[in-house]
């Protein structure tokens, strides 16, 4: 089964081939939304740095920083890289890479005795 058949599309060559698709995807956000996301990212970065300097939060510093970092990462990937709006295959590829990295981290750090802190 070809990928096109798997995805319910017509094959690109041979009988029933689709004529040259210029790729068409979901509409991307406008400049105003990008600026809003940018401001959100700036605020999160400021919070990260502020949290770093607050002694009272030292016990929960690592989880807070990891959550904030993951939030920034997701905002950039979903909105600026358009994974929220583009074809799911792109997300699958990228998330596949991230899953491999996560596996690599766990295996390497567990095997060789590394730690996050």
């Amino acid at each position, binding site marked *: 089964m070809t990928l096109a058949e798997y995805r319910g599309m017509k094959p690109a060559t041979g009988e029933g081939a689709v004529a040259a698709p*210029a790729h068409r995807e979901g509409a991307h956000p406008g*400049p105003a939304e990008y600026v809003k996301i940018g401001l959100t990212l700036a605020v999160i970065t400021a919070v990260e740095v502020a949290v770093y300097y607050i002694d009272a939060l030292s016990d929960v510093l690592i989880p807070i920083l990891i959550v904030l970092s993951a939030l920034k990462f997701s905002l950039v990937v979903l909105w*600026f890289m358009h994974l929220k709006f583009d074809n799911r295959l792109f997300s699958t590829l990228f998330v596949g*890479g991230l899953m*491999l990295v996560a596996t690599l981290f766990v295996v390497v750090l567990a095997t*060789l005795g590394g730690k996050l802190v």
Partner: protein
Amino acid sequence: MQHAPALATNTGLDNRKLLMWLFLASECLFFGSLIGAYLLYRDRSVAGPYPEDLFDIPFTSVSAFILLMSSVTMVLALAAIQRGDQHGLRVWLFTTAFLGILFVSGQAFEFTEFNREGLSLSTNLFGTTFFVLTGFHGAHVTVGVLILMSLFVMALRGRLTRAESLHVELAGLYWHFVDIVWIVIFTLVYLIQP
């Protein structure tokens, strides 16, 4: 959104964009390995200087902010070309490249300061893993700046029209990836210390 006509593909997607995402997935592993090596070896140095002796968090925070804002200007450049705004495209491409140069300059300054404090690639395990990780990231930013400047020159010559918006989109994907790698490095390397 409509891009320049591409050859028919089995996926119905433009192969250039698909290839860029495959490349970025492979880059995840590349930087993941370097970050993993850093986390593994940073506190196994038998001699200083150590991270806590050198890191200047306020300075690095400004660098991180600059790179983050360059992602905003990059996506504004894409929005500009997609609506046929040539002036906006040139302004935002140039701004993004400028912010990228600022970031690399900051990194060069930081490397120089660390070297003056006695840290080199071969001083200890922290130095080796730190310089390799952040050095490769800086090299990626530098390549990104070169791509952006090339696009800027193309835009100035009128060779980057709405029909070629995919070029800007692909450059943007690379640039945003470099940014998200720094988001991770900033947290795991600079803010979370043993």
